[in-house]
């Protein structure tokens, strides 16, 4: 049996489960408290976002979303997520594979490093990039130096107006940084729980490393991977703090969706701000839907496997 199955409720497990002794009253009370809490803190704000978004009518809603600055923000957010999610996906699989399947010195250091973006405030991670790549940082001092080392490199970068901070590359970098751990963190426990026996069997039967990965490891982790990608994407599109430090907030150029929402809100355009915010809210709902679907698929697959093994 696949050990991961224990984290999901499969139907025949549920059958053993009416052994709680609490009275129906206590059960209803607990469910009631949970529901009230959820509706006050999640449902009401969600409804509020959409109510405010359409406060000035549906025409205004689409006018706001069709504005060139809004379209540019949407494009930039899609670009940043489109680059950072695949990169972090590849990195996450590599890191999880290395950590779960091999023993090496410094494994704990690697694990700690992966967790770094979770423990550092996003604003600090943005500032790090400003300090390194800003005009007063290493890169800027190098480009403006009178006698730089490798003058051909400095000239080439200057001629091509090479920019990181306050331009698209900085926004992509900051997004990669903050979404770094999502895929790896999702896969490491899963791969550790699965152990190495299946891979070892594949190797004994003569599979190459690459074949082992594609035919044994990847099918085993595909649902966990998808789950990590969904979370990673949601964070990439919603990131505010780190991106706001490196963006420069040039309207129509370096504003992402969250930054554009802030700009509209500060322009006293509250309905407009909520209209754009509703895009992110819809993204959240889609994320939630996908996540549920992935969990359902995963559970179904496990049930099927269990039936076979029984």
């Amino acid at each position, binding site marked *: 049996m696949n050990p991961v199955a224990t984290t999901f409720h499969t139907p025949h497990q549920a059958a053993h489960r009416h052994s709680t002794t609490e009275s129906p009253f206590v059960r209803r009370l607990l469910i009631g408290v949970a529901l009230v809490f959820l509706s006050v803190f999640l449902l009401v704000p969600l409804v509020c976002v959409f109510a405010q978004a359409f406060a000035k009518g549906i025409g205004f809603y689409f006018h706001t979303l069709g504005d060139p600055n809004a379209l540019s923000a949407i494009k930039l957010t899609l670009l940043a997520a489109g680059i950072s999610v695949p990169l972090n996906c590849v990195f996450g699989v590599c890191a999880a594979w290395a950590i779960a399947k091999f023993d090496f010195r410094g494994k704990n250091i690697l694990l700690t490093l992966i967790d770094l973006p979770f423990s550092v405030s996003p604003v600090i991670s943005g500032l790090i990039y400003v300090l390194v790549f800003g005009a*007063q940082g290493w890169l800027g001092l190098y480009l403006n130096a009178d006698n730089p080392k490798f003058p051909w490199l400095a000239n080439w970068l200057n001629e091509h107006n090479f920019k990181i*901070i*306050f331009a698209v590359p900085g926004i992509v970098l900051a997004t990669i940084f903050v979404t770094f751990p999502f895929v790896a963190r999702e896969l490491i426990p899963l791969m550790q729980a699965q152990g190495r026996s299946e891979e070892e069997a594949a190797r004994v039967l003569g599979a190459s490393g690459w074949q082992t990965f594609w035919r044994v490891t990847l099918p085993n982790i595909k649902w966990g991977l998808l789950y990590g990608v969904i979370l990673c994407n949601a964070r990439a599109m919603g990131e505010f703090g780190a991106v706001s430090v490196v963006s*420069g907030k*040039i309207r129509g150029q370096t504003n992402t969706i969250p930054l554009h929402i802030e700009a509209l809100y500060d322009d006293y355009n509250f309905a407009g701000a909520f209209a754009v915010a509703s895009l992110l809210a819809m993204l959240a709902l889609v994320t939630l839907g996908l996540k549920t679907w992935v969990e359902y698929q995963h559970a179904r697959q496990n049930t099927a496997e269990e039936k076979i093994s029984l």
Partner: protein
Amino acid sequence: MKTFLNILLATSLALSGGAKEIKLLNVSYDPTRELYSEYNAAFAKYWQAKTSDTVTVSQSHGGSGKQAQAVVNGLEADVVTLALAYDIDAISQQARLLPADWQQRLPNNSTPYTSTIVFLVRKGNPKQIKDWDDVVKKGVSVVVANPKTSGGARWAYLAAWAYALETNNHDEAKAKEFITKLYKNVPVLDSGARGSTVTFAQRDIGDVLLAWENEAHLALKEFGADKFEIVTPSLSILAEPPVSVVDKNAKRHGTTEVAKAYLNYLYSDEGQEIAAKNFYRPRNETLTGKYAGNFSQLKLVTVDQEFGGWAKAQKTHFADGGIFDQIFQP
């Protein structure tokens, strides 16, 4: 090969004097959003009629000090239009992107419009706030931005300090006591002036907002004159938000000429009228009469008279370890 020929063709066309498309970046402070969105359109029209080039001006807004730091760190502004001279001095000193005497290059200390600090209170003025003394009373909640990052907040601080000096025979210790009481009444410090206005007007926090005059009028216009009132204190400061071309950036972008014209046009009749309509006090005196209703008469002191210039004021009051750091404990 074909693309190469296309590029060659395009460059030769551009060199032979077809209409160009020019991009400018104006890095500005917080409350100028409405002013420059109107002015940029007017300037683009003027410039197209004059040279047949299209010019698109992009905007970036935020707390004045924060914006200056962004330019220092590499935000490639062609022009800066900030809340106070010290922030442009900082760009000149720290990044050497423009000469130290930048402020002499345009009329009126490179300040095409001025403003001052007034009070915005809730309708009916329930706490009876009439002058600075009422702002520091116990139980009055004051909304103002952080002087470390916001230009408007620094002007507000200096206005309060100047009032305290005037009413206490220029006793610095009394002024410090006054300003301490004032900031004890502040529940939140936003990073920019616009953030404070939203805190006061939209989030309903505080009894009085220390605001740019233009920002206070705009709040009445946006949220309705039935919600707020403007109170003019007996004394305030003449706030001079200056403008400058960022020479090195403009030179690199090849936009020096248009950047200069962009700032010069602020002094034209049309530029001055747009400023006045957006509640900035115009330099052009013929307009002062026309828009007199927007600007109440009060005693205004300048930072040069009262504080010996911005460099000195910044060092004494807002630098690390300065008076603001001594009196404000969050």
